[in-house]
């Protein structure tokens, strides 16, 4: 990996998102978030509910304007949504009046306006086949389970051939068996397509199994990167091999310990931020995780 942009494919520097509170003061929900993703890397972002994980993802997607800092994909500043970044949300958000095939074709038409009808059809069929829905192309969302609908959502996102795939708790609504099945489906696709991927999750096992790196976020407000953990397990991964690795539980313990510490620090962190907001002259006593 020699190209500079491949080594710093997604560059997030001092990313901050602030919303005004009812008194007109800006509250920074995410502050000084720094992270660099290499091309083809899978990075999970974990943290407590409401810490700002999805805010970071939506800013990378271009769906949520940033307040300050910078955000670039392959050296180009992100200024809004684009087909180079595809998002899969917790809910598949399929159009109910369209079949599986039509739902996928909707995006493909936008991304391949100059492709022939046959080419577009082949793209849709290829990705629906990859997610295991070759036999369900003509079914409507109401005729499918939640897991199958999420597969359609994944096929729809990947069929756009994005440079960056953004998964916002994509398995959050699924039972554990379907979740594991879909994790394998996504990993299989990502191993083939080498798409740079950010996964938002609450599940530490999912984060370890799927990711090359895990970004642990501190509590909000002013949430930021607490630490980043490199996951050294080789790809392609087999679930059982990962579980059998003697260091698997070192990683699991580190993640859970981090989340527990954040839970214990929640009240004091909020109090410290409030105190500082009420006394801006004391800005020097910065709230930091050490």
């Amino acid at each position, binding site marked *: 990996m020699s190209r500079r942009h491949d080594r710093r494919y997604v560059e997030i520097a001092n990313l901050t998102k602030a919303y005004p509170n009812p008194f007109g003061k800006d509250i920074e929900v995410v502050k000084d978030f720094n992270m660099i993703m290499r091309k083809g890397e899978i990075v999970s972002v974990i943290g407590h509910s409401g810490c700002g994980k999805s805010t970071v993802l939506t800013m990378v997607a271009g769906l949520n304007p940033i307040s300050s800092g910078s955000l670039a994909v392959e050296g180009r500043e992100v200024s809004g949504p684009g087909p180079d970044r595809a998002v899969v949300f917790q809910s598949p958000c399929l159009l109910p009046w369209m079949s599986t095939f039509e739902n996928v074709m909707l995006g493909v038409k936008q991304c391949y306006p100059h492709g022939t009808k046959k080419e577009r059809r082949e793209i849709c069929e290829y990705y629906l086949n990859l997610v295991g829905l070759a036999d369900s192309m003509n079914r409507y969302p109401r005729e499918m389970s939640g897991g199958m609908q999420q597969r359609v959502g994944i096929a729809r996102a990947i069929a756009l051939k994005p440079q960056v795939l953004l998964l916002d708790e994509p398995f959050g609504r699924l039972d554990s068996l379907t979740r594991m099945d879909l994790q394998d489906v996504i990993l299989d696709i990502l191993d083939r397509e080498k798409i740079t991927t950010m996964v938002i999750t609450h599940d530490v096992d999912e984060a370890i199994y799927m990711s090359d790196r895990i970004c642990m976020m501190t509590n909000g407000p002013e949430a*930021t990167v*607490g*630490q*980043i953990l490199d996951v050294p397990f080789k790809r392609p991964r087999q679930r059982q091999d990962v579980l059998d690795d003697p260091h698997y539980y070192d990683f699991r*313990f*580190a993640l859970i310990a*981090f989340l527990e510490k954040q839970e214990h620090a929640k009240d004091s962190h909020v109090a410290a931020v409030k105190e500082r907001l009420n006394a801006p002259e004391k800005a020097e006593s910065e709230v*930091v*995780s*050490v």
Partner: protein
Amino acid sequence: MNAFTQDPPHIMTATTASCLIRYVEVWTPSPDNPGQVILESANLINPENLTPISPSVTRFNDGEGAIGSAMRQRGTVIFQDMPCADLERVRNETGADITAFMAFPVYFEDKLINVVAFGLIDGHGAVEIWTRDDRDELSISGSFYGGLEAFEYISQHVKFPKGAGLPGVCWKQGIPKMVNDPNGNPNFIRSFDRDPAKLTSVIGLPISRSYGYPASILLLMSSEANPLAKYSAIVKVEADQPTEEVPLPKMQATAIECGSNGSESISWQQAAVDSVANCGRCSIVTGDPIGDGYHSAIVVPFSKKGRTDRVMILAF
């Protein structure tokens, strides 16, 4: 008036655990040759006293040995496996069972003031060197661990962006920081519950030539069984307002920012810290005893924006 003189003299019971630091050397740039350092002081730290040592080597060129490497790299070096000439030298000359030898430079702005070297015993505790990688994150480039196997393994995979974790905060703020009771401290975000060694305090030191660009961050971790020193602290230093009589501001310790015994005062600190803060050079303070149950201390200044800003004290 300052934090030291406001508090009544306080006598503390120094810990009797054997210290991780067993040997200390202070080197200073040669007045005739800027590419060379000469030995200022070498001492073996015993439980009851400090024994001066006369090493066979009293001069190192830039890049030569551990001391010269610390000069050249402008960062910390640590050796714990043989063959290492410095480790062997120190073992032979002190007769002590030293298992690791580390050295780090001390700068005032971009001027090398001292190179400080420690000989460490095989005990519970850790030393980590964090350096910037190609992602602008800090990762471990050198380390020494005792009794912290799980912590050691996971730490090799941990990265800190600027401002995150103790190393990231030292990098961002450019000042030394200390954390007591790291496992109970919600802000120390690595955990070591699974290890036999219980860390009691962690000191982070930015090793830099100039403010804002630390070449590396040095983390020194004390355990219950083997603290780095009997007492350790980071002291904040401020300049007095210049007056007509004294136009040049005098540096003065204002508060113990964090100490291994909390922020309680120790009577001997004031003069030692003030002296180091004003001359901007490392100092080994000795006495019989120097006070409060300590026989000696090493005091290391850290500068920021053209003046001494913080001072680290390790007392034995």
